[in-house]
Every structure is written in structure tokens, then in C-alpha cells.
């Protein structure tokens, strides 16, 4: 079994699966259970300033989006940062870290955008002996309306400023947690780097309304007939997060900046994907909230088996491996030509490929009276929609054409050479450059 030991910012944990700062990590009791279950690290539920404890709603905090059989695809929450006294949290962190020296323990912090506030809390966090801190610049609800969380994360200058204060007043790693509720994730990431951050973690939750109760006309979760936007997470947000992780990983200005990947990590495969796009480890929340801490076992075993199959002996072997393959559209090879191919033996004749292609795409699939579905190469643009809607795995595949063959759709010979939009004759910019 491949060794999953992962070192992130010099912090070594027995595996790359950390629990994200969230409800599951709010108390010593939960965190001990998590470590006993085998999690490699924990980012403690965000702590705030000393003083009167945070107040949460006393009604539902979570909304949900279901797939088939009530499978949780997305959760949203309106819970705030920890509502327990600061001192209690700090004492618990110290005890847990002392008892689990081999695990990563990170303190997540959110205090007002005043240097004094950070100066007050950082030494107290340092005293606990935790391995580092994560700056919560992400939560989109409640705290952001008080000028914290996403309100900071949406202003790169604030990110840089606060990060710098932290680096000046704390000597262990500083991770900046980013909000996805912005237009271009590279700007806050650059700001974090410029402020001296050791890493960024992303994404925090996405501003969302999960559903509307059509009887009461209230958004869910509903508190006495009213709802407010919450933070969306779970498998549904993973594609958004993967793109943001890749954006940062391949941005020249932030290249090399360590990333902790967050957003819908539910299986070992999700983790492997995040890490292949440059994340040094992953943080998990919704999967644990849905299935309990025990799911980490599948993640560990799965990642290890996959690494064995691929011949990777360390997570470092595959971290970032997919980053060079993420590019801009304009650099995609326009000489690559593929055609859909339907395996007639595997086909169960549902006709979904036909409906999708005929109604919404390129009329490139024919249907015979006895329900044989075949691709019309002269119409197929290889859009992949038929593959995506086919209920049978590998029944429809995209088969690349060989250079020298003639594409019956365009009448052109498939060329072996790579050629992209930047040099395409239809590109006005390309012509202008001549």
C-alpha cells in the first residue's frame, strides 16, 4: 500500500485528508473522534474575538439539494463561526494537539480588519501549539455583513493587508482561505501571496439559496418564514472549485504557491483530481457531515490503491501533474478530430443519444425503425453530449481520427500537426499579425 504521508507547508500528516474548518470541527469531542477515525489533519472551526459569544439562529442552519434517492449533492449553511468562548476553544486545541502530535491541527481565525484585533488573538493561538493558522476570508453569510469573512476575501487589498499582519505577528504557516464569490480567483490569490501567505485554501462556500418552499414562499432553510443566502458546498461545487484551483496553480504570479483544495471532496478520486491540479492536500466537510468520519477510510484506501496502480510512491509524485494540461481555449489543438462511436452490443436502445443529438445538437445520430442508433460521421462534431447522456458506461466513445483520414463532415484531411486558434486563418488577430 502506497504511503500517504503528506507534507504541506512543512506540516507532516499521515494522509492528505484534512477536515475543513466547519461544524464537524467545532469541539474537542468531534476532533478527537475525527483523529481516531483516521483523518490526517483538522482545521478547527473558525474562532473569533474574545468577548460575548457568537449567536446562531435557533432554527434550521442547513439547506440541501438532493439527487436520486435523497443523495446529498449540495448543502448550504447559515451557521456562523464558533459560538463557544474563545478560551474554551484554545484550551481544547492545545489538549488535542498535545495528544495527537502526528496529526495536523490548524486554527481558523476570523476577527475584524484591525491590526490590533489580530495582534490580540495570534499570540494566544500560538500558545496552543497548533501547526498553523488559516484566515477565514471566505464565509459568505452573516459575518460578511459585519465586515469579515467574504467581505475581506472580496477585496484583494484587505487580503494582502491582513495576511501581512499575520505573518508579522505569527511565526508558523499562514494559510489564506479564499471565497469563490468573486469574478477572478487569481486576484485574491495574488494578494494573499503578496501579503506573504504560505498557502491558499479554496474554495469556501458559494453564496446560494438552495430552494424555495412553494407553500410558504420562503427560501430554505427557513427561519420563521424567512430565509437568507447561505454558503453552498458539497459535490455540486467541485467543478467550480477545481477550476479555481487550476487557475491559481497555473497563474505565473502565484505559481508554486501551495494550495489546499476544498469543495465537494467525497471520494479518493476527488482528492486525486484536486491534487493533480496542484493541491498539496484536500479538506473535507460535506462528505463527513453526510456519512460520518468513517468515510476517510475509503478515501485513504482508495487513494493508496490508485497510487499503487499508477506506481506513485508518494503523494508528491502526482501533485500538480495535470496542471500543464490545463490551458486556454485558444491553445487547444484544432487539428484534433474525433467521432462518436456506438458499441451496438452494449447499446440498450434507450434512444437518449438520439434525442439529445436530434433535438439539441447536430442531428448526427440516425435511428432505424428497429431502434438501431448509429452515428452519422458527416454530421458528428464530436461534441460528446451523446456520451454524457448515455446510461451505459463506455457504450459510446469518442474515437480520434487518424492523420491522413478525411473528415467526412468537413471534407478536410486530418493533419498530424498541432494547430490552434492563434494561428487559425479565421482569427482576425492571427491575420493582423501577419
Amino acid at each position, binding site marked *: 500500500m502506497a504511503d500517504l504521508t503528506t507534507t504541506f507547508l512543512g506540516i507532516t500528516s499521515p494522509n492528505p485528508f484534512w477536515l475543513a474548518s466547519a461544524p464537524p470541527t467545532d469541539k474537542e469531542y468531534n476532533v478527537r473522534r475525527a483523529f481516531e477515525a483516521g483523518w490526517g489533519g483538522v482545521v478547527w472551526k473558525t474562532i473569533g474575538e474574545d468577548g460575548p459569544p457568537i449567536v446562531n439562529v435557533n432554527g434550521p442552519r442547513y439547506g440541501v439539494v438532493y439527487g*436520486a*434517492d*435523497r443523495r446529498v449533492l449540495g448543502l448550504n449553511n447559515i451557521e456562523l463561526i464558533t459560538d463557544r468562548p474563545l478560551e474554551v476553544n484554545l484550551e481544547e486545541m492545545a489538549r488535542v494537539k498535545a495528544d495527537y502530535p502526528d496529526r495536523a491541527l490548524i486554527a481558523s481565525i476570523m476577527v475584524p480588519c484591525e491590526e490590533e484585533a489580530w495582534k490580540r488573538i495570534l499570540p494566544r493561538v500560538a500558545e496552543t501549539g497548533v501547526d498553523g493558522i488559516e484566515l477565514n476570508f471566505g464565509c459568505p453569510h452573516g459575518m460578511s455583513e459585519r465586515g469579515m469573512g467574504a467581505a475581506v476575501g472580496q477585496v484583494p487589498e484587505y487580503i494582502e493587508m491582513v495576511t501581512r499582519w499575520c505573518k508579522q505577528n505569527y511565526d508558523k504557516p499562514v494559510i489564506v482561505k479564499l471565497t469563490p464569490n468573486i469574478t477572478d480567483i487569481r486576484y485574491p490569490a495574488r494578494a494573499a501571496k503578496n501579503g506573504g501567505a504560505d498557502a491558499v485554501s479554496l474554495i469556501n462556500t458559494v453564496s446560494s439559496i438552495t430552494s424555495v418552499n412553494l407553500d410558504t414562499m420562503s427560501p430554505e432553510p427557513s427561519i420563521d418564514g424567512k430565509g437568507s443566502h447561505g454558503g453552498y458546498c458539497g459535490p455540486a461545487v467541485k467543478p467550480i472549485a477545481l477550476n479555481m484551483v487550476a487557475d491559481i496553480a497555473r497563474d505565473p504570479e502565484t505559481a508554486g504557491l501551495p494550495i489546499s483544495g476544498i469543495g465537494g471532496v467525497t471520494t479518493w478520486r476527488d482528492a486525486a483530481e484536486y491534487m493533480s491540479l496542484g493541491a498539496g492536500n484536500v479538506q473535507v466537510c460535506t462528505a463527513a457531515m453526510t456519512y460520518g468520519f468513517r468515510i476517510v477510510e475509503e478515501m485513504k484506501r482508495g487513494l493508496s490503491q490508485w497510487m499503487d496502480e499508477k506506481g506513485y510512491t508518494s503523494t508528491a509524485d502526482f501533485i500538480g501533474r495535470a496542471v500543464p494540461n490545463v490551458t486556454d481555449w485558444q491553445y487547444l489543438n484544432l487539428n484534433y478530430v474525433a467521432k462518436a462511436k456506438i458499441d451496438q452490443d452494449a447499446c*440498450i*436502445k*434507450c*434512444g*437518449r443519444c*438520439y*434525442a439529445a443529438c436530434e433535438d439539441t445538437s447536430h442531428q448526427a445520430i440516425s*435511428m432505424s425503425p428497429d*431502434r438501431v442508433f448509429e452515428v452519422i460521421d458527416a454530421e458528428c462534431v464530436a461534441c460528446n453530449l451523446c456520451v454524457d447522456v448515455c*446510461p*451505459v458506461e463506455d457504450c459510446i466513445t469518442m474515437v480520434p481520427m487518424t492523420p491522413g483520414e478525411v473528415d467526412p463532415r468537413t471534407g478536410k484531411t486530418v493533419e498530424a500537426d498541432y494547430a490552434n486558434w492563434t494561428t487559425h486563418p479565421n482569427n482576425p488577430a492571427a491575420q493582423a499579425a501577419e
Partner: protein
Amino acid sequence: MPDPMTQGIAAGRLDATQIARNFDDLHAPLASHEAAVAADRCYFCYDAPCVTACPTAIDIPLFIRQIQVGQPEAAAVTIFEQNILGGMCARVCPTETLCEEACVREAAEGKPVEIGRLQRYATDTLMARQGHPFVRAEPTGKTVAVVGAGPAGLACAHRLAMKGHDVTIFEAKGKPGGLNEYGIAAYKTVDDFAGREVDWLMGIGGITIETGQALGEGLSLDALRADHDAVFLAVGLGGVNALGVEGEARDGVEDAVGFIADLRQARDLRDLPVGRNVVVIGGGMTAIDAALQSRLLGAETVTIAYRRGRDRMPASRYEQDLAASKGVRLMFNVMPVAVHGNGSVAEIELEYTAERNGSLTGTGETLRLPADQVFKAIGQVLTTDGGLELACGKIAVTGAGRTSADGVWAGGDCASGGDDLTVTAVAEGRDAAEDIHGALIG
């Protein structure tokens, strides 16, 4: 005291608890979450094979999607638009040879979408929560006589009434429903569903049912034609084929359809006598229903004797397996040659058969089975034809049930063409109604 070992034909072989358990709903209704999970398996196929396989062409992918999105009542309307007896069909259709056999998931994994149970979930929900879902059109002043209140007659009457015509149904028996009421295994239609379904169907208005009115017995086709703008005949098949063997007249040799009708109408199934050793001759659904229910009533041994091989048996493999699972013995390639006994039947003598060049012949080898009750289930015949032209022993029809007489349509088991299934009868009644409507309104 109940005693399964009582010799001969006797009532009360099983106690009330066992009887109740035996005749409980064959398939429990789906709960709403079960329905959601089952519905989610539907692929919403293009030009779906299940719809093609349904004699009433219900838009199955649409109604299943409506269940998926939490609107079983709307799903039921989709069903009832095509098949007003969709509730009964959900219970009695041989889905394993119709929609579910055609389901692509049957091809893919041998496990079709549970279309029948989903249809029942939708129709039960609507029938429990709402009244009648359709509104009758303005009265047209036209009158139509429907003879027979079985599935074909009811479906025809409903469609005609919906279009504003006044319909009188003449039914020979004491209750409407036809085979839904007097045929079909009890465990497929528990809690008087057949009766409740007719009451619900009548909610459309414009339909009158006159029971005790049989064609040829006080009711003449000519008089009906004279008094109405159109006539629809759905009289079913009133006769039962004879075995034509020695000893057939002995006590204990009975028609399976009569036994099933008695069973369906019994107030208390413990009062219904059944043999200790029962032999059913035949291979269709009637044979299965008679045999299986004999077992459920407490018969010690029940044998179905079918003259051809299993592959030729009209009852589906699913029904065969169901019967076998309840302890019914299925014998193939045997035909009755004599009924023995002293007054009452005591034994039945069977001869093995072989099929040579398409014809069935006895091999000469015989066996005897103890039998104190023998049920004949070798097909039913038309007994009332109203003087119309016939085809293969049934009322000849063309198009949507047009007979040889002007203004007279026919459908269901009494008419030529189509399988003798509830769902086929519904389709024929519905289509005849549309044709009648077209003829009356022009």
C-alpha cells in the same frame, strides 16, 4: 375446526388468519420514497419501447417523470387519459410480457423499471385524494347503448360520456366490472378495488348501468339499435369449452371461471369449498388463477395439466413461477383422457403428448392423479353474437371495432382481434368510443 386433511371438496380448510395472509395484496403498494427511487430508474427513453408495448399506449416515461417530481396525481391523469382503468391494469396487466419486457433496463440488467407498481402508486394516490379527474363535455343529446360492463364496456362508456353522450350500460350480471369483478385472482385486486373503481369511473356522469340485462334474454340488438344512436357490444365470452372426455359429467368437474367468480364474490373465503386434491386442465391465466387460489384456500395438492410444452403455455413465466412458488405443480405435455370416480370424481387420467409436425398426439402412456375437484380452464367461447358476422368464433370487427351492422361496434374478448387482456379490452373500448363519437358528431 379448520382441517386441511378433510377428504373431498370441503370448506374451511384453513383458519381466518392464514386465509387473510394468503389472499393479501400480492405486491404491497409502493410508499412514496420507494416510488421516487423506482421512478428514478426510468431513462425517459426516446420513442420509448414500453409505450409501444402498452396496448393503451400510456405515456409511461412522462408519468414516471411526474412521479419523480412529486406529482403522482398528475402522473395518474397522464395514465387515465389513455386508460381509464389504469388502476386495475396496474394490478392485473402481465407487465412482464408488455411494458416491463420492453423496458431497456430489462435488456440492460434484467431488471426493468417497475412500471406496473409505479402506475398503481400514481393511480391509487389520485383515487384516494381526488375525485374524478375529468370533466364531461356539454351534453350532445346522443344516446349510446353499451352491452356489458366489463373493461371494454366501461372504457367505451367513459370516453363517450366524457364527450357528452348519454350512455346506458346493460349488464347481465348483478354487478358491473366484468372479469375485473368476477374473474382475476383475488390477491391482485384486494379491498373490493374493482367495485370502487367502477364507482369512481362513474364520477364522470352521464352513464347509467342497468344490471340483470342480458343480450338475447329480453334484450335484443334490434331494439337497442332502434332506441339508441349507436350500440357497443362488449359481452365477453360467456361459455366454457368442454374437455370432451369420458366422465366429464361427474360431480366435482367444474368450470374454472365459475370457481373464480364464486371466490371473488365470497363474503368469507373460509366458506368456499375446495378439493383436497385439485387438478386444473389448461394453461392460461384462468388455469393459473384457479390453481393458485385452490392452494391458497388450503388444497393439499394442486396440479396444472397443460397439453403442450412450457414454451407454448399462454400464462407468462412469471405467473408460472408464482404458482410454483405457492406449491402448484405444473405438468406439461399431458392431456385428460378420462375422469374416474364413483359418482364424484376421484381420479383423472392423463395421457402424455408429443407434438409432431405441428399437431398434438397422445403417446399412449397414461398416468392417474387423485382428484376430488377438476377445473376446466381450456378457453371460453362466445355465447351471444346478436346475429352479427363472426370471425374465428368471435364478432368480426374492422377498424376501431366496427361490426357488420351499421351503428354497432364491438370490443373486448367478444370481438375478433387483440389479446384477451384487460388492457386490450380498455384500448378497444376507448378506440370504439372515439370512432362512435366521430360517427355521431360527424
